[in-house]
């Protein structure tokens, strides 16, 4: 049975349709990614799945429980890492986790044990009794992850888990998710607009203006494109082109100082080409399609990487100054 099932889900905010009839399912143990630009409907979907928002129509269930009728059972079986920080800066790391543990009904002894385990898992054991106010952005994120797994959820939701983090912390968090998945078989549902991040997912759905426009494994989605681009440089590009046309029956394009070819399996064709050609080649390069290429070919636009939340810096400034 699927851990998340979503059927013709719609959510409207007044005249705006944020989620426009999406359907998908996530199997147990899967890392499922929602990839799309800001305002595509990712966070709205997460909010519905987490029971924070009621759908306008359609159905959603998590862990076998309906998100509307059985909200309490859903809440008990999930962990969430929200896009914006939701820690209490005036409490210590331990206190934040203890608060969470009690909200989820853990007893004192179990809570303490799990808190120690979770803190060491995210490498924050040494900071246990420090006020969260003193934590860096990366540390806060790690603490939130520790908190998210404290109640041993069946499904872990992560809304843009690595947004605004440095590459090192980003890698660490990915490493952690992979370990978690291997050791606990947890189901992870995440949203992202980072393409590298989506590549880590078992399966992804590409979402734009409230609709799922493609879904599958990252490899499947990329295979749907024409393929890899090979670029061969040569002193005699014309000769090279002729030779490839004759020997391999392909139609290369002449570019500046060489030729380019679009092929399905670049990694297999490239060695064969080099072996079979007598024209002198001076340089070789191959680029595989990225998820951005997939997104581009489906929507005709790029997923913006930066400048995602124009108010983000302001909000975080207010947060630091005001509390």
């Amino acid at each position, binding site marked *: 049975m699927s851990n998340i099932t979503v059927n013709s889900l719609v959510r409207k905010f007044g005249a705006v349709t944020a989620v426009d009839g999406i359907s998908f399912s996530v199997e147990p143990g899967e890392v499922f990614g929602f990839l799309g630009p800001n305002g595509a409907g990712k966070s709205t979907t997460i909010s519905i799945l*987490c*029971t*924070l928002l009621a759908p306008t129509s359609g159905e959603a269930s998590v862990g076998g429980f309906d998100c509307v009728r059985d909200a*309490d*059972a859903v*809440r*008990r079986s*999930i962990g*969430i890492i*929200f896009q*914006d*920080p*939701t*820690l*209490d*800066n*005036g*409490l210590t790391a331990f*206190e934040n986790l*203890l*608060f*969470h543990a*009690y*909200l*989820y*009904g853990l007893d004192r002894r179990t809570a303490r044990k799990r808190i120690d385990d979770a803190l060491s898992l995210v490498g924050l054991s040494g900071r246990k009794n420090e006020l969260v106010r003193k934590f860096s952005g990366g540390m806060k994120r790690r603490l939130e992850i520790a908190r998210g797994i404290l109640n041993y959820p069946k499904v872990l939701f992560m809304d843009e888990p690595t947004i605004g983090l440095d590459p090192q912390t980003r890698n660490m968090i990915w490493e952690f998710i992979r370990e978690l998945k291997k050791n606990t078989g947890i189901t992870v549902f995440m949203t992202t607009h980072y393409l590298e991040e989506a590549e880590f997912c078992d399966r992804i759905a590409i979402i734009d203006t409230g609709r799922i426009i493609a879904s599958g494994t990252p490899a499947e989605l990329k295979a749907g494109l024409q393929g890899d681009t090979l670029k061969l440089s040569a002193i005699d590009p014309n000769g090279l082109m002729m030779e490839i046309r004759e020997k391999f029956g392909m139609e290369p394009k002449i570019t500046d100082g060489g030729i380019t070819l679009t092929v399905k399996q670049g990694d297999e064709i490239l060695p064969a080409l080099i072996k079979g050609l007598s024209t002198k080649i001076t340089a070789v390069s191959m680029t595989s399609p990225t998820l951005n290429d997939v997104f581009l070919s489906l929507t005709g636009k790029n997923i913006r990487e930066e400048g995602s939340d124009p108010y983000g810096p302001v909000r975080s400034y*207010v*947060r630091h100054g005001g*509390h």
Partner: protein
Amino acid sequence: MANLAHEIKAIYVISYRELKKFIRERSRIMGTMARPILWLFVVGGGMSRLVRPVGGVSYTQFIFPGMIGMTILFASIFSAISIVWDREFGFLKEILVAPISRFSVVVGKAMAGTSISMLQVLILLIFVPVLGIKLNVLQFLLLFVSSGMLAFSLTCFGILVASRMTSYEGFNIIMNFLVMPMFFLSGAMYPVKLMPPVLREITYANPLTYGVDGLKNILLAGASGTPMGPEYPALVDFAVVAGFLAVTAVLSNLSFRRAA
């Protein structure tokens, strides 16, 4: 409410968090305690030179019940406003996705406001001997119970207001147009009987008036019948505060559920 023990634990931890933060921030305790002490000794001390004692009660003694009322009012409303902070800083989401009822969240917040208020009332009671007010065990218990009821109802009232506030900018409006008038028009500073008619009518409509009057009944019973003494029988004060508590308890729950 499938699991009562779980809900109680949640109520406990929600109020524990606020109390812990309050105690941790020493400057906040100093700040909140400075206000009644200033009123009591600077304003009260000054006014005592102008206003003769009536019925054996000096002006400073007269405003003491009002200072307890003010302390409760400010502490309770401030504590309830933390909901707006929690929303602003995202922490409210952490509470709202937890498998606990909205009712427990409101009760937890109300308990938090009540305990913070009561803590301050207890600190304020240190000044009882200095002010020459006598307090026996029964009076102390009555004071504790009435303050507790007033604190709980005012926190619920604050939650009712806070769940309708979408940003922290509304805070000044609440302070200037709600909290300050509630304080000044409660009989805390001057006897209600001696107020101009229009203000007197407003004062009669203010639930805090009855809270303060109840405290006067406990602390200034000797001055009954004079302008410095309590105005209503203790039972009337008790009934009004209890009614206010019941109404705010229900409305705060409805309002929070709708906003959350």
